[in-house]
């Protein structure tokens, strides 16, 4: 048994980005955090950034444990304080890329003030927020994002508070990059993180994810796979969507996509601008003038670009090897059959690990095909294209799946006053 684990650790493609000496991790089966960490590790690799210059900061909670598993410089802080710690790291050494990986309770509850102020300052950090609507580590209490009527251990008769819509909050606070996906959108999560790692300014990526042990169980919503099905049925892809329209109701529609991407001087750029006016061209921060720092940054950018190219070449080689296998045509066929028209869209929506239950109808397992499609898209400068697309056709109601007006039993649940009355079908 233990030798199996050792073998797995040694052979894992993530062995360079995760601390294999700390596996197995603490997360429950069906939890969304693991796949987010996978996406993150993948994004770091694909982005080409120097992993030595990456610092991951987490707060407290299930997601707060991420810092302990990623093989980068990592800081596990106190509850809610990941963002100010990350701010300190970034400002003390601007060459570092700083990522905050934490949960919604940590970031928007106890750490809410830090979240909005970092966004307001356009602090150059990436915030990845795992939103599972519950405080998992402490046993499933209500959080600032728990949708109305959901049962939590501290709202045993259903939640009566008004929840935050995090993209809207972040937009109002001044975040310059805002995206939301669900645990089902692993590849989109990867792509968003990759984009965020390569841009300057405050980036906020929300990932709606299942907590099977507490939130799902208490609300009788089945297991993690059932919830992925719900995300599949109810996600609405809407790039550039007005963030006022991103609220999430209990088991209701979840608007996903990249909502905001804009340029604005970061906090440090603003500091530089002010100080150079005051001190003159020989202004230095930590002993380096602005041109010196800019030259370093440019050199680093070139190194990153080179690593990206190398990474893509490697991936292309691997992709060819994969598509040479007989498996590939089958999965391509699966995509064709799949009801979603999104497969064509740039970052195709794909379930990385096929939920066993839905395998027959979902585009699951269709890894190879969209990968190739995406590769092509990346080559053709995916970002601008995608952005232009989002702007050109305002993508009103680009529904990821056939509109689910047939109101699944789960959707019905939200209309009922107490979740207790929710249909029991989900749990087998």
């Amino acid at each position, binding site marked *: 048994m233990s030798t199996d684990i050792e073998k797995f650790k040694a052979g894992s493609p993530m062995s360079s980005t995760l*601390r294999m*000496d*700390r596996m197995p991790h603490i997360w429950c089966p069906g939890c969304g955090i693991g796949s987010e960490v996978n996406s993150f590790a993948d994004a770091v690799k694909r982005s080409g950034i120097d992993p*030595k*210059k990456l*610092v991951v*900061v987490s707060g407290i909670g299930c997601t707060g444990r991420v*810092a*302990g598993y990623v*093989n*980068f*410089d*990592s*800081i*596990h*802080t*106190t509850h*809610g*304080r990941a*963002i*100010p*710690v*990350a*701010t*300190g*790291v*970034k*400002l*003390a*050494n601007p*060459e*570092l890329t700083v990522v905050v990986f934490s949960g919604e309770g940590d970031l928007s509850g106890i750490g809410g*003030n*830090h979240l909005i*102020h970092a966004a307001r300052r356009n602090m150059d950090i990436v915030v990845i927020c795992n939103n599972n609507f519950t405080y998992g580590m402490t046993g499933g209490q209500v959080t600032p994002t728990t949708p109305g009527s959901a049962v939590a251990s501290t709202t045993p008769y259903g939640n009566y508070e008004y929840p935050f819509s995090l993209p809207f909050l972040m937009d109002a606070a001044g975040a310059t990059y805002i995206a939301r996906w669900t645990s089902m959108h692993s590849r989109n999560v990867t792509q968003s993180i990759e984009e965020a790692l390569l841009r300057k300014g405050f980036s906020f990526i929300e990932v709606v994810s299942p907590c099977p042990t507490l939130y799902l169980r208490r609300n009788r919503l089945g297991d993690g796979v059932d919830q992925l099905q719900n995300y599949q049925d109810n996600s609405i892809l809407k790039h550039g969507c007005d963030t006022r329209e991103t609220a999430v109701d209990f088991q209701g529609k979840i608007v996903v996509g990249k909502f905001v991407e804009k340029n604005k001087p970061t*906090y440090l750029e603003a*500091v530089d601008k*002010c*100080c150079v006016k*005051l*001190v003159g061209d020989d*202004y*230095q*921060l*930590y*002993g380096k003038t602005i041109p010196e720092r800019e030259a370093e940054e440019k050199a680093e950018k070139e190194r990153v670009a080179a690593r990206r190219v190398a990474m893509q070449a490697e991936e292309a080689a691997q992709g060819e090897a994969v598509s040479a296998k007989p498996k590939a045509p089958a999965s391509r066929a699966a995509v064709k059959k799949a009801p979603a028209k999104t497969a064509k869209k740039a970052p195709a929506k794909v379930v990385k690990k096929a939920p066993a239950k839905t395998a027959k109808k979902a585009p699951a397992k269709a890894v190879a095909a969209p990968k190739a499609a995406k590769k092509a898209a990346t080559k053709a400068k995916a970002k601008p294209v995608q952005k232009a697309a989002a702007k050109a056709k305002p993508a009103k109601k680009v529904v990821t799946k056939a509109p689910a007006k047939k109101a699944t039993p789960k959707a019905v649940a939200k209309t009922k006053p107490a979740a207790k009355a929710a249909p029991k079908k989900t749990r087998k």
Partner: protein
Amino acid sequence: MKTERSGASEKAKASVRRRYAGAETVAADPKGVDSGPHFMDGDHALAEGALAAGCRFFAGYPITPSTEAAERFAERAPEVGALFIQMEDELASIAALIGAAWAGQKCMTVTCGPGFSLMVENLGLAAMTETPMVIANVQRGGPSTGLPTLTAQQDMMQAKYGPHGDNAIIALSPDSPQECFDLTVEAFNLSEFYRVPVIILTDETVGHMHEKVVIPPADQIKVIPRNNYSGPKEDCRPYKFDCQGGHPMVRAGDGYNFHITGLTHNEKGYPVMTAEQNVKVVTHLMEKINGNADEIVRLEEDQIDGAEVVVVSYGITSRIAVKAIQDARKEGIKVGSLRMITIWPFCEKRIREISAKVKAIVVPEINYGQMVLEVERNAGGRCKVISVNHCGGAVHDPQVILDAIRKASQ
């Protein structure tokens, strides 16, 4: 009566190899040193001391009566090449220091009681993760919002016992703007060597008092530079639980992929949540400071030999006590004075020695009686201990201290 923590303390002493006094120092970076005589208040001197000690990162939040230190740093930062950021609150200020310290900067914040109460949360994290930083608490009258513009020495115990769980910090108490400068440099040195938050417990009176402050030339200011680990990756350990200072930091971006956590951890920094590991960590944290008290504690003594009464004081109160001591000596009473420059770790050994020789110890302080408890504990009934407490808002009337000395001598 010996309250020496037997086992661990002896062990720490026996194995001392890295001594604070022997730590490598370098001359201060002239860029941060505004040499020459100045007329400035204690708050400004705190900021100047920080810049001289090589502090290049300051995160703060305005609060009377400490704000002037933040303002001074903000004003000086661009020319020195330092960074000042006003955070959204004190929780964030000290959190930013933790991040900045692990990213390689010497860092500082200033505050007073209400802000310090908020900082206590991450003061615990800083102590647990052995993060060097300097925090100045310019004390004002409490409790709660209390007396924002008036003096007090009411946060003495909070500095040590504020964070939950057992941990030890170092605290220094300056009695003048000059000492605000000097002790800030010293605080940085101690914090770098022992990898511990060092708190400067000054007060509103010293903070707002203008006096002559002489800042020496840069080459006469000795600073302990940040000691970053540079060995092979497989041997990299952010911690060493050997009850000593002098273990190097690991800097973010140097490729060591360190992990630090507030959880009970091993020397690699990984969480190990067992009772056995907690013994190792807590013993180290406590004994790193308490076991090295002899090296850390600084006192100023006057005519203690042969004295029948000794006045033990600190901060601004020690300057008020001087008048009472002089008057008492005129009356023929043999009075000695002990001024605590280091508050924590407490000068246990010296108080034990003194208590065996004198009739009484008089402890004036601007609170309801805090440090007097430590004096009493260490005097252990060998002499009288008289508390001259004065709730916040003003310094003592020297007459009150004189009366206490008279009473003590009888």
